[in-house]
Protein backbone atom coordinates (compact mmCIF):
# COMPACT_ATOMS: atom_id res chain seq x y z
CA UNK A 1 0.00 0.00 0.00
CA UNK A 2 1.00 3.62 0.17
CA UNK A 3 3.02 5.47 -2.37
CA UNK A 4 -0.08 6.81 -4.03
CA UNK A 5 -1.25 3.27 -4.58
CA UNK A 6 -0.62 0.81 -7.35
CA UNK A 7 -2.92 -0.24 -10.11
CA UNK A 8 -5.77 -2.45 -9.05
CA UNK A 9 -6.79 -5.63 -10.93
CA UNK A 10 -9.43 -3.78 -12.88
CA UNK A 11 -7.11 -1.01 -13.97
CA UNK A 12 -8.18 1.38 -11.20
CA UNK A 13 -5.78 2.96 -8.73
CA UNK A 14 -5.83 1.66 -5.17
CA UNK A 15 -5.74 4.04 -2.28
CA UNK A 16 -5.35 3.56 1.46
CA UNK A 17 -7.29 5.63 3.95
CA UNK A 18 -6.21 6.56 7.45
CA UNK A 19 -8.24 7.38 10.52
CA UNK A 20 -8.00 7.61 14.30
CA UNK A 21 -10.72 5.62 16.01
CA UNK A 22 -12.06 6.79 19.34
CA UNK A 23 -14.12 9.71 18.00
CA UNK A 24 -17.72 8.51 17.88
CA UNK A 25 -19.83 8.75 15.97
CA UNK A 26 -17.30 9.69 13.29
CA UNK A 27 -14.94 6.76 13.78
CA UNK A 28 -14.64 4.14 16.45
CA UNK A 29 -14.08 0.46 17.06
CA UNK A 30 -17.08 -1.73 17.75
CA UNK A 31 -16.47 -5.43 18.28
CA UNK A 32 -13.09 -4.94 16.71
CA UNK A 33 -14.57 -3.43 13.55
CA UNK A 34 -13.83 0.06 12.40
CA UNK A 35 -17.16 1.87 11.97
CA UNK A 36 -18.54 5.39 11.89
CA UNK A 37 -19.84 8.22 9.77
CA UNK A 38 -16.46 9.03 8.22
CA UNK A 39 -15.87 5.40 7.33
CA UNK A 40 -19.19 4.97 5.54
CA UNK A 41 -18.97 8.35 3.89
CA UNK A 42 -15.49 7.96 2.47
CA UNK A 43 -16.31 4.51 1.17
CA UNK A 44 -19.41 5.90 -0.54
CA UNK A 45 -17.39 8.77 -2.03
CA UNK A 46 -14.59 6.57 -3.32
CA UNK A 47 -17.17 4.27 -4.90
CA UNK A 48 -18.15 7.19 -7.09
CA UNK A 49 -14.59 7.65 -8.37
CA UNK A 50 -12.17 5.60 -10.50
CA UNK A 51 -10.17 4.73 -7.40
CA UNK A 52 -10.66 1.71 -5.17
CA UNK A 53 -10.23 1.74 -1.44
CA UNK A 54 -7.65 -0.89 -0.55
CA UNK A 55 -8.17 -0.58 3.19
CA UNK A 56 -7.93 1.45 6.37
CA UNK A 57 -4.96 2.19 8.57
CA UNK A 58 -5.42 3.28 12.16
CA UNK A 59 -3.17 5.87 13.78
CA UNK A 60 -3.20 8.23 16.67
CA UNK A 61 -4.90 11.42 15.53
CA UNK A 62 -1.70 13.39 15.68
CA UNK A 63 0.22 10.87 13.55
CA UNK A 64 -2.24 11.13 10.69
CA UNK A 65 -0.69 14.10 8.95
CA UNK A 66 2.86 12.72 9.12
CA UNK A 67 1.52 9.39 7.86
CA UNK A 68 -0.15 11.18 4.95
CA UNK A 69 2.86 13.24 3.94
CA UNK A 70 5.03 10.16 4.35
CA UNK A 71 2.80 8.28 1.89
CA UNK A 72 1.80 5.62 4.39
CA UNK A 73 -1.77 6.58 3.59
CA UNK A 74 -3.39 8.55 0.77
CA UNK A 75 -6.39 10.13 2.43
CA UNK A 76 -7.39 11.08 5.95
CA UNK A 77 -10.99 10.67 7.07
CA UNK A 78 -10.93 11.45 10.75
CA UNK A 79 -13.30 14.28 11.56
CA UNK A 80 -10.47 16.62 10.73
CA UNK A 81 -11.44 20.28 10.61
CA UNK A 82 -10.08 22.44 7.88
CA UNK A 83 -7.86 25.19 9.22
CA UNK A 84 -4.99 27.33 8.04
CA UNK A 85 -2.22 25.59 9.93
CA UNK A 86 -3.19 22.21 8.55
CA UNK A 87 -3.71 23.66 5.12
CA UNK A 88 -0.06 24.66 5.05
CA UNK A 89 1.01 21.05 5.26
CA UNK A 90 -1.73 19.17 3.43
CA UNK A 91 -4.70 19.83 1.16
CA UNK A 92 -8.37 19.35 1.99
CA UNK A 93 -11.34 18.29 -0.05
CA UNK A 94 -14.50 20.35 0.03
CA UNK A 95 -16.11 20.31 3.46
CA UNK A 96 -18.42 17.39 4.16
CA UNK A 97 -19.67 18.31 7.61
CA UNK A 98 -19.90 21.49 9.65
CA UNK A 99 -19.26 21.17 13.26
CA UNK A 100 -19.75 23.65 16.00
CA UNK A 101 -18.15 23.31 19.39
CA UNK A 102 -20.24 22.36 22.39
CA UNK A 103 -19.32 23.42 25.93
CA UNK A 104 -20.10 20.50 28.22
CA UNK A 105 -20.52 20.85 32.00
CA UNK A 106 -21.62 18.63 34.89
CA UNK A 107 -25.35 17.99 34.95
CA UNK A 108 -25.73 18.50 38.69
CA UNK A 109 -23.16 21.30 38.98
CA UNK A 110 -23.89 24.92 39.76
CA UNK A 111 -21.78 26.13 36.85
CA UNK A 112 -23.84 26.94 33.81
CA UNK A 113 -21.93 29.29 31.50
CA UNK A 114 -23.73 30.91 28.61
CA UNK A 115 -20.85 32.29 26.60
CA UNK A 116 -17.14 31.82 26.24
CA UNK A 117 -16.43 34.78 28.48
CA UNK A 118 -18.12 32.98 31.38
CA UNK A 119 -15.35 30.39 31.18
CA UNK A 120 -12.56 32.71 32.23
CA UNK A 121 -10.94 31.78 35.50
CA UNK A 122 -12.32 28.23 35.36
CA UNK A 123 -10.42 25.08 34.41
CA UNK A 124 -11.26 23.87 30.97
CA UNK A 125 -10.45 20.67 29.10
CA UNK A 126 -10.32 19.59 25.46
CA UNK A 127 -8.88 16.79 23.35
CA UNK A 128 -5.39 17.42 22.14
CA UNK A 129 -5.13 18.48 18.51
CA UNK A 130 -8.86 19.08 18.02
CA UNK A 131 -10.81 22.18 17.10
CA UNK A 132 -11.96 22.29 20.71
CA UNK A 133 -8.38 22.89 21.74
CA UNK A 134 -7.89 25.50 19.06
CA UNK A 135 -11.02 27.26 20.26
CA UNK A 136 -9.74 27.37 23.81
CA UNK A 137 -6.36 28.61 22.59
CA UNK A 138 -7.65 31.25 20.19
CA UNK A 139 -10.72 32.50 21.99
CA UNK A 140 -9.71 32.22 25.62
CA UNK A 141 -5.97 31.97 26.20
CA UNK A 142 -4.69 34.33 23.49
CA UNK A 143 -7.00 37.23 24.49
CA UNK A 144 -5.92 36.66 28.09
CA UNK A 145 -9.28 35.45 29.38
CA UNK A 146 -7.87 32.16 30.59
CA UNK A 147 -4.56 31.42 32.21
CA UNK A 148 -2.70 28.73 30.36
CA UNK A 149 -2.34 26.67 33.51
CA UNK A 150 -6.13 26.40 33.72
CA UNK A 151 -6.31 24.53 30.44
CA UNK A 152 -5.96 20.73 30.49
CA UNK A 153 -5.31 18.86 27.31
CA UNK A 154 -6.27 15.17 27.07
CA UNK A 155 -5.22 12.40 24.75
CA UNK A 156 -8.86 11.53 24.26
CA UNK A 157 -12.12 13.32 24.97
CA UNK A 158 -13.38 10.32 27.05
CA UNK A 159 -10.68 11.12 29.58
CA UNK A 160 -11.64 14.79 29.49
CA UNK A 161 -15.25 13.99 30.28
CA UNK A 162 -14.11 11.56 32.95
CA UNK A 163 -12.11 14.34 34.57
CA UNK A 164 -15.08 16.67 34.27
CA UNK A 165 -17.14 14.18 36.26
CA UNK A 166 -14.32 13.89 38.81
CA UNK A 167 -14.46 17.62 39.37
CA UNK A 168 -10.90 18.34 38.25
CA UNK A 169 -12.17 20.61 35.47
CA UNK A 170 -15.35 22.64 35.08
CA UNK A 171 -16.05 22.40 31.36
CA UNK A 172 -15.00 20.50 28.23
CA UNK A 173 -15.00 21.93 24.72
CA UNK A 174 -15.78 19.29 22.05
CA UNK A 175 -17.45 18.84 18.71
CA UNK A 176 -21.18 19.09 18.93
CA UNK A 177 -22.19 15.63 17.67
CA UNK A 178 -19.75 14.04 20.09
CA UNK A 179 -21.09 16.17 22.92
CA UNK A 180 -24.57 14.99 22.13
CA UNK A 181 -23.54 11.36 22.38
CA UNK A 182 -22.09 12.15 25.77
CA UNK A 183 -24.99 14.13 27.11
CA UNK A 184 -27.12 11.08 26.38
CA UNK A 185 -24.84 8.63 28.17
CA UNK A 186 -23.33 10.49 31.06
CA UNK A 187 -24.38 12.90 33.82
CA UNK A 188 -23.16 15.84 31.74
CA UNK A 189 -24.98 18.41 29.74
CA UNK A 190 -24.34 20.89 26.92
CA UNK A 191 -24.27 24.39 28.43
CA UNK A 192 -24.17 26.20 25.10
CA UNK A 193 -22.69 25.83 21.65
CA UNK A 194 -20.14 28.05 20.07
CA UNK A 195 -20.41 28.69 16.35
CA UNK A 196 -16.99 28.20 14.87
CA UNK A 197 -18.05 27.65 11.32
CA UNK A 198 -15.63 24.71 11.51
CA UNK A 199 -15.80 22.36 8.57
CA UNK A 200 -14.57 18.80 8.36
CA UNK A 201 -12.82 17.78 5.19
CA UNK A 202 -10.91 14.76 3.95
CA UNK A 203 -7.17 15.36 4.07
CA UNK A 204 -5.06 14.64 1.00
CA UNK A 205 -1.44 15.14 0.12
CA UNK A 206 -0.40 18.59 -1.00
CA UNK A 207 -0.34 18.80 -4.79
CA UNK A 208 -2.28 15.58 -5.38
CA UNK A 209 -4.77 17.67 -7.34
CA UNK A 210 -6.16 15.00 -9.63
CA UNK A 211 -7.11 12.83 -6.67
CA UNK A 212 -8.54 15.79 -4.73
CA UNK A 213 -10.69 16.68 -7.70
CA UNK A 214 -11.93 13.10 -8.00
CA UNK A 215 -12.91 13.07 -4.33
CA UNK A 216 -14.66 16.42 -4.62
CA UNK A 217 -16.65 15.13 -7.59
CA UNK A 218 -17.52 11.96 -5.71
CA UNK A 219 -18.55 13.97 -2.68
CA UNK A 220 -20.95 16.14 -4.63
CA UNK A 221 -22.50 13.05 -6.25
CA UNK A 222 -23.04 11.52 -2.81
CA UNK A 223 -24.47 14.74 -1.43
CA UNK A 224 -26.84 15.11 -4.40
CA UNK A 225 -28.27 11.61 -4.00
CA UNK A 226 -29.90 10.18 -0.89
CA UNK A 227 -26.76 8.51 0.49
CA UNK A 228 -25.54 11.50 2.47
CA UNK A 229 -28.89 11.93 4.19
CA UNK A 230 -29.09 8.21 4.97
CA UNK A 231 -25.68 8.27 6.61
CA UNK A 232 -26.50 11.35 8.66
CA UNK A 233 -29.64 9.66 9.88
CA UNK A 234 -27.80 6.46 10.61
CA UNK A 235 -25.03 8.05 12.71
CA UNK A 236 -26.53 11.20 14.16
CA UNK A 237 -30.18 10.15 14.04
CA UNK A 238 -30.55 8.69 17.54
CA UNK A 239 -30.45 12.05 19.27
Amino acid at each position, binding site marked *: FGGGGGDGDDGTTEITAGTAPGFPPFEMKQ*DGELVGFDIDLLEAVVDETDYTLAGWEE*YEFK*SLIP*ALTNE*NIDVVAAGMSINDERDETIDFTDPYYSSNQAIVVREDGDFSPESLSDLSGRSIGAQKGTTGETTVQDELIEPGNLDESNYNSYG*NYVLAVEDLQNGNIDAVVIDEPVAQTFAAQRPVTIAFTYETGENFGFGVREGDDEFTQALNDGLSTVRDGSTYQDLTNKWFGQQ
Partner: protein
Amino acid sequence: MPPLPLQSDWAFVAGNLDLLLAGTGVTVGLTAASILLGFLLGFPAGAVEVYGRGPLKRAVETAGVVLRGTPLLVIIILLFFGLSVSSSAFVTATIALGLRSAAYQSQIFRGALQSVDEGQLEAARAIGMGRLQAIRGVVVPQALRRSVPGFQNEFTIVLKDTSIAIVIGLGELLTVGQNLYQGGQSTAALEIFLTVSLIYFVLTFVTNRSLDYIDDHFSIPGGERA
Protein backbone atom coordinates in the same frame (compact mmCIF):
# COMPACT_ATOMS: atom_id res chain seq x y z
CA MET B 1 -13.84 4.51 49.97
CA PRO B 2 -16.19 6.71 47.96
CA PRO B 3 -18.00 5.10 45.05
CA LEU B 4 -15.85 4.60 42.00
CA PRO B 5 -16.53 7.38 39.55
CA LEU B 6 -16.69 4.92 36.68
CA GLN B 7 -19.54 2.58 35.98
CA SER B 8 -18.75 -1.06 36.53
CA ASP B 9 -19.08 -2.89 33.32
CA TRP B 10 -17.26 -6.16 33.59
CA ALA B 11 -19.70 -7.84 31.23
CA PHE B 12 -18.57 -5.50 28.48
CA VAL B 13 -14.97 -6.43 29.13
CA ALA B 14 -15.82 -10.12 29.11
CA GLY B 15 -17.67 -9.74 25.82
CA ASN B 16 -14.61 -8.20 24.21
CA LEU B 17 -12.04 -10.54 25.65
CA ASP B 18 -11.33 -12.03 22.23
CA LEU B 19 -10.27 -8.61 20.95
CA LEU B 20 -8.05 -8.07 23.95
CA LEU B 21 -6.48 -11.45 23.39
CA ALA B 22 -5.82 -10.61 19.74
CA GLY B 23 -4.13 -7.40 20.95
CA THR B 24 -2.15 -9.53 23.38
CA GLY B 25 -0.97 -11.56 20.39
CA VAL B 26 0.46 -8.43 18.76
CA THR B 27 2.09 -7.44 22.05
CA VAL B 28 3.70 -10.84 22.45
CA GLY B 29 4.89 -10.99 18.86
CA LEU B 30 6.36 -7.52 18.96
CA THR B 31 8.03 -8.14 22.31
CA ALA B 32 9.55 -11.42 21.16
CA ALA B 33 10.85 -9.98 17.90
CA SER B 34 12.26 -6.89 19.61
CA ILE B 35 13.92 -8.76 22.45
CA LEU B 36 15.46 -11.14 19.95
CA LEU B 37 16.80 -8.32 17.79
CA GLY B 38 17.98 -6.57 20.95
CA PHE B 39 19.83 -9.69 21.98
CA LEU B 40 21.42 -10.27 18.58
CA LEU B 41 22.78 -6.71 18.56
CA GLY B 42 23.14 -6.10 22.29
CA PHE B 43 25.20 -9.14 23.14
CA PRO B 44 28.00 -8.44 20.65
CA ALA B 45 27.83 -4.75 21.61
CA GLY B 46 28.34 -5.65 25.27
CA ALA B 47 31.27 -7.86 24.30
CA VAL B 48 32.80 -5.05 22.24
CA GLU B 49 32.50 -2.69 25.21
CA VAL B 50 34.39 -5.16 27.39
CA TYR B 51 36.93 -6.62 25.01
CA GLY B 52 37.02 -4.22 22.10
CA ARG B 53 39.24 -1.24 21.65
CA GLY B 54 39.72 1.76 19.42
CA PRO B 55 37.12 3.30 17.13
CA LEU B 56 34.80 0.27 17.13
CA LYS B 57 34.48 0.40 20.91
CA ARG B 58 33.95 4.16 20.89
CA ALA B 59 31.34 3.88 18.16
CA VAL B 60 29.42 1.22 20.08
CA GLU B 61 29.58 3.24 23.29
CA THR B 62 28.38 6.40 21.60
CA ALA B 63 25.53 4.64 19.83
CA GLY B 64 24.55 3.17 23.21
CA VAL B 65 24.52 6.53 24.96
CA VAL B 66 22.41 8.09 22.21
CA LEU B 67 19.93 5.22 22.06
CA ARG B 68 19.59 5.07 25.83
CA GLY B 69 19.27 8.82 26.14
CA THR B 70 16.56 9.30 23.53
CA PRO B 71 12.94 8.56 24.35
CA LEU B 72 11.57 5.58 22.47
CA LEU B 73 8.80 7.70 21.04
CA VAL B 74 11.33 9.94 19.34
CA ILE B 75 13.22 6.94 17.96
CA ILE B 76 10.10 5.33 16.60
CA ILE B 77 8.76 8.53 15.00
CA LEU B 78 12.10 9.29 13.40
CA LEU B 79 12.48 5.77 12.02
CA PHE B 80 8.99 5.69 10.56
CA PHE B 81 8.26 9.24 9.44
CA GLY B 82 11.78 10.58 9.21
CA LEU B 83 13.94 7.81 7.76
CA SER B 84 11.10 5.57 6.55
CA VAL B 85 13.19 2.46 7.17
CA SER B 86 10.24 0.26 6.32
CA SER B 87 6.68 0.78 5.26
CA SER B 88 5.58 -1.93 7.68
CA ALA B 89 4.73 -0.58 11.10
CA PHE B 90 5.52 -3.92 12.69
CA VAL B 91 8.99 -4.01 11.17
CA THR B 92 9.69 -0.40 12.12
CA ALA B 93 8.43 -0.90 15.68
CA THR B 94 10.58 -4.02 15.97
CA ILE B 95 13.64 -2.11 14.78
CA ALA B 96 12.98 0.81 17.14
CA LEU B 97 12.27 -1.35 20.18
CA GLY B 98 15.05 -3.74 19.21
CA LEU B 99 17.69 -1.03 18.81
CA ARG B 100 16.75 0.62 22.07
CA SER B 101 16.70 -2.73 23.85
CA ALA B 102 20.07 -3.61 22.33
CA ALA B 103 21.49 -0.50 23.96
CA TYR B 104 20.22 -1.62 27.34
CA GLN B 105 21.00 -5.29 26.86
CA SER B 106 24.57 -4.37 25.97
CA GLN B 107 24.91 -2.90 29.46
CA ILE B 108 23.46 -6.01 31.07
CA PHE B 109 25.89 -8.23 29.21
CA ARG B 110 28.79 -5.86 29.77
CA GLY B 111 28.21 -6.14 33.51
CA ALA B 112 27.85 -9.90 33.34
CA LEU B 113 30.99 -10.36 31.25
CA GLN B 114 32.95 -8.13 33.60
CA SER B 115 31.70 -10.03 36.62
CA VAL B 116 33.31 -13.23 35.40
CA ASP B 117 36.60 -13.46 37.22
CA GLU B 118 39.57 -12.44 35.10
CA GLY B 119 41.32 -15.63 36.12
CA GLN B 120 38.85 -17.60 34.01
CA LEU B 121 39.99 -15.95 30.81
CA GLU B 122 43.59 -16.20 31.88
CA ALA B 123 43.31 -19.90 32.63
CA ALA B 124 41.76 -20.51 29.22
CA ARG B 125 44.55 -18.59 27.53
CA ALA B 126 47.09 -20.54 29.58
CA ILE B 127 46.00 -23.85 28.03
CA GLY B 128 46.51 -22.33 24.61
CA MET B 129 43.01 -21.19 23.68
CA GLY B 130 42.87 -18.10 21.46
CA ARG B 131 41.34 -14.95 22.84
CA LEU B 132 38.05 -15.26 20.95
CA GLN B 133 37.89 -18.96 21.61
CA ALA B 134 38.43 -18.40 25.33
CA ILE B 135 35.80 -15.67 25.53
CA ARG B 136 33.31 -17.82 23.66
CA GLY B 137 34.05 -21.10 25.39
CA VAL B 138 34.65 -20.01 28.95
CA VAL B 139 33.52 -16.46 29.74
CA VAL B 140 30.32 -16.25 27.71
CA PRO B 141 28.66 -19.39 29.09
CA GLN B 142 29.17 -18.11 32.62
CA ALA B 143 28.16 -14.53 31.81
CA LEU B 144 24.93 -15.60 30.12
CA ARG B 145 23.84 -17.36 33.27
CA ARG B 146 24.54 -14.28 35.34
CA SER B 147 22.61 -11.95 33.07
CA VAL B 148 19.23 -13.57 33.67
CA PRO B 149 17.97 -11.11 36.33
CA GLY B 150 18.90 -8.07 34.26
CA PHE B 151 17.37 -9.71 31.23
CA GLN B 152 14.10 -10.20 33.12
CA ASN B 153 13.96 -6.49 33.89
CA GLU B 154 14.63 -5.63 30.29
CA PHE B 155 11.96 -8.01 29.08
CA THR B 156 9.41 -6.43 31.42
CA ILE B 157 10.25 -2.99 30.09
CA VAL B 158 10.06 -3.94 26.42
CA LEU B 159 6.78 -5.75 26.97
CA LYS B 160 5.15 -2.63 28.29
CA ASP B 161 6.81 -0.27 25.85
CA THR B 162 5.27 -2.05 22.87
CA SER B 163 2.21 0.13 23.46
CA ILE B 164 4.09 3.07 21.99
CA ALA B 165 3.83 1.44 18.55
CA ILE B 166 0.37 2.97 18.08
CA VAL B 167 1.94 6.26 17.06
CA ILE B 168 2.90 4.56 13.82
CA GLY B 169 -0.38 2.73 13.52
CA LEU B 170 0.39 -0.59 15.17
CA GLY B 171 -2.28 -1.33 17.74
CA GLU B 172 -1.49 -3.83 20.47
CA LEU B 173 -3.04 -4.73 23.80
CA LEU B 174 -3.18 -1.28 25.36
CA THR B 175 -4.50 0.35 22.18
CA VAL B 176 -7.17 -2.31 21.77
CA GLY B 177 -8.18 -1.61 25.36
CA GLN B 178 -8.34 2.13 24.78
CA ASN B 179 -10.32 1.65 21.58
CA LEU B 180 -12.86 -0.35 23.57
CA TYR B 181 -13.75 2.40 25.98
CA GLN B 182 -13.47 5.04 23.32
CA GLY B 183 -15.78 3.13 21.01
CA GLY B 184 -18.95 4.80 22.20
CA GLN B 185 -20.54 1.56 23.40
CA SER B 186 -19.25 1.65 26.92
CA THR B 187 -17.28 3.85 29.23
CA ALA B 188 -15.82 1.00 31.24
CA ALA B 189 -12.37 2.58 31.25
CA LEU B 190 -11.33 1.43 34.72
CA GLU B 191 -12.42 -2.15 34.09
CA ILE B 192 -10.52 -2.17 30.83
CA PHE B 193 -7.37 -0.76 32.40
CA LEU B 194 -7.51 -3.28 35.19
CA THR B 195 -8.00 -6.14 32.73
CA VAL B 196 -5.16 -4.94 30.53
CA SER B 197 -2.94 -4.62 33.60
CA LEU B 198 -3.83 -8.13 34.64
CA ILE B 199 -2.87 -9.49 31.22
CA TYR B 200 0.47 -7.66 31.34
CA PHE B 201 1.01 -8.95 34.84
CA VAL B 202 0.32 -12.54 33.84
CA LEU B 203 2.68 -12.21 30.85
CA THR B 204 5.45 -10.80 33.04
CA PHE B 205 4.93 -13.29 35.79
CA VAL B 206 4.84 -16.33 33.54
CA THR B 207 7.87 -15.25 31.52
CA ASN B 208 9.96 -14.33 34.53
CA ARG B 209 9.15 -17.56 36.32
CA SER B 210 9.99 -19.52 33.17
CA LEU B 211 13.30 -17.70 32.92
CA ASP B 212 13.93 -18.53 36.58
CA TYR B 213 13.19 -22.13 35.78
CA ILE B 214 15.56 -22.17 32.83
CA ASP B 215 18.15 -20.44 34.96
CA ASP B 216 17.78 -23.08 37.68
CA HIS B 217 18.02 -25.80 35.10
CA PHE B 218 21.27 -24.46 33.70
CA SER B 219 22.67 -23.28 36.99
CA ILE B 220 26.02 -24.66 37.96
CA PRO B 221 25.66 -27.14 40.81
CA GLY B 222 26.87 -25.75 44.10
CA GLY B 223 27.84 -22.51 42.43
CA GLU B 224 26.80 -19.25 43.99
CA ARG B 225 23.96 -17.51 42.25
CA ALA B 226 24.51 -14.15 40.73
